[in-house]
């Protein structure tokens, strides 16, 4: 199988979508730049022209609204936000408009827009270049939210998002851009709302999103050397999310750890934990555990960053405590 990086897989999905469908176009800040999007959009403007690969003014609101309008008109736009923090200036077109449209008009109008938001943190960037806001958007009915963690899913989920018919927020993480993985060359789809079991196990279930799914697999490998077999579920989609796969695993292991690289309070990990308490309580043999970011803005200075972000070490430590309880 061919190996690609996560960023290359995103680029390949864009290239194949642009080549295969005249309705697809790309709009957003930095799409002509070699560094806003890493290599994930490299030279697409040269390949497909600047009428279809459009670098935009710093106008998140109007640019996102324009993508929503173009989708309503029958196009398949992908609007790119190189930093999710800045996308907050576009909450109106995303939350008030795109998400509401199908319901408000009883299905008469669809909004097949993809809103790509990159989580781009670390490197002493500080509070406004770091946020992971998936829970805010997963809260909103009418939006779908996907968070690929592997190159395979990065490609397949982008293609699914473009053809879903609904507004889909596609959240990628710059910390994953150099991850390597098998990626088939032809176009393929990864179903939205379906989790992937990355590693089977019998002692506890680790449900993780995006970057934390990769960390969870690393943690599980270490746990295995201590005789703890963790089942790792990569959610891949947080709205809708694959409840059945998660509950089935809890019924097998009796223990749940949720790892999400975002704030704890009101975060997506809380949703998974609450749902487990509602629907799989009888199977739980220990309280649900969470590995999340502390409830504080992202710090800048490197020692503070190291204290703030969570890694495989934190997941492994939490898993050991949970397995022993």
């Amino acid at each position, binding site marked *: 199988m061919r190996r690609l990086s996560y960023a290359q897989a995103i680029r390949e999905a864009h290239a194949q979508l642009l080549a295969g469908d005249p309705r697809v176009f790309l709009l957003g800040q930095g799409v002509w730049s070699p560094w806003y999007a890493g290599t994930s959009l490299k030279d697409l403007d040269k390949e497909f022209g600047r009428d279809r690969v459009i670098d935009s003014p710093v106008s998140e609101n109007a*640019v996102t609204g*324009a993508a*929503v309008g173009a989708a309503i008109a029958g196009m398949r736009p992908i609007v790119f936000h190189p930093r999710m923090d800045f996308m907050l200036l576009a909450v109106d*077109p995303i939350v*008030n408009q795109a998400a509401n449209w199908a319901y408000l008009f009883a299905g*008469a109008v669809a909004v097949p827009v993809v809103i790509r938001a990159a989580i781009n943190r670390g490197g002493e960037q500080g509070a406004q270049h770091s946020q992971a806001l998936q829970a805010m958007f997963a809260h909103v009915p009418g939006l779908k939210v996907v968070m690929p963690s592997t190159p395979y899913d990065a490609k397949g989920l982008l293609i699914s998002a473009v053809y879903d018919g609904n507004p889909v927020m596609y959240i990628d993480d710059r910390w994953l851009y150099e991850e390597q993985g098998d990626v088939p060359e032809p176009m393929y789809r990864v179903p939205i709302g379906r989790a992937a079991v990355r590693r089977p196990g019998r002692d506890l279930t680790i449900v993780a999103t995006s970057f934390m799914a990769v960390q969870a697999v690393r943690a599980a490998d270490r746990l295995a050397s201590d005789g703890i077999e963790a089942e790792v579920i990569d959610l891949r989609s947080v709205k809708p999310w694959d409840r059945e796969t998660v509950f089935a695993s809890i019924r097998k292991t009796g223990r749940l750890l949720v790892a999400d690289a975002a704030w704890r309070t009101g975060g997506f990990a809380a949703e998974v934990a609450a749902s487990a308490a509602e629907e799989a309580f009888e199977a739980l043999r220990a309280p649900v555990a969470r590995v999340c970011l502390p409830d504080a803005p992202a710090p800048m200075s490197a020692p503070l960053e190291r204290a703030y972000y969570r890694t495989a070490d934190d997941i492994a430590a939490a898993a050991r405590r949970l397995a022993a309880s």
Partner: protein
Amino acid sequence: MGDHVTTSVVGPAAGAPTTAFLFGCWRDMLRIRMFEERAGELVEAGEIKTPCHLYIGQEAIAVGVCRALRREDYVWGGHRSHGHYLAKGGDLRAMMAELYGKATGCSRGRGGSMHLVAPEVGVYGTVPLVAATIPLAVGTALASRQRGDGRVSVAFLGDGATEEGHFHESMNLAALYRLPVLFIVENNFYASHMHLLERRRADNILAAADAHSVPGAVLDGNDVMAVYEAAARAAARARAGEGPTLLECRTFRWRGHVGPSWDMDVGVKRKDELKDWLPRDPVARLRARLAEAGVEEAAFTAAEAELRAEVEAAVEFARRSPYPDPATLLDHVYTAREAEG
């Protein structure tokens, strides 16, 4: 000043309009007026409960602009969009049923007065979040540019919406990409209860057009032909790939911000202004012009009777229609349609 200039798009008329065209404009305006007056009565009677922002007094703008458009052109509106919906060709009965929250409404009882839709005539959604549809109009215009389909997009917005960032960002994008979009500012001088000059330093909406290198003009928004001619020229420019235009149409809404009351909610100052505006009634003005041109009284009264009957039939249709089934509550949160078709 920059090196660009504001150019008036209001030029000499292509030719004197025919009486038949003018009569059609009058009838379209009266149809909106009669719908709105009846809706106002039904709100007062408690039969219609959804908040209704009535368009009475502003009819010449919707009709003048939409007469300059094609069926497939896109029209976007806001909270006060009954007139836009009707002028573009939306089904009158379906809108009345929507005000009643019925399953036969244009939005199937999910929208009400503030969320109207008629995709078959280019109305892809009017929503009350002020200025929100301006970027969407830029988006449909961008789609038209990408496809080369020759369609024009129209953003109807009020003077209040020009104070939102949406408006300025959208003007810049439309100008930058030379998009086929018309920004129709319906300046009725009040955003809810606040006068224009309580919200900005000067009466200078048009200056925003200049600032974004968008040609613009100020019009008498109560003169349907002035609006029509300017909109027709702006639409022709847009279709020719020459980019956006802003038209500030000055007008006055006769009723309160929301509901049928004559100003109870906005105080004395506005009541005094209303006295000056009532004689400039766009519907009565055109009727007088038509009468001067020789249209017989019988033609007016026949049209009035037809329209009254149409509105009354819509009320009966709405009353008789079923409410949405609560079993459909969660339908359409997502569309089941894949986007490939």
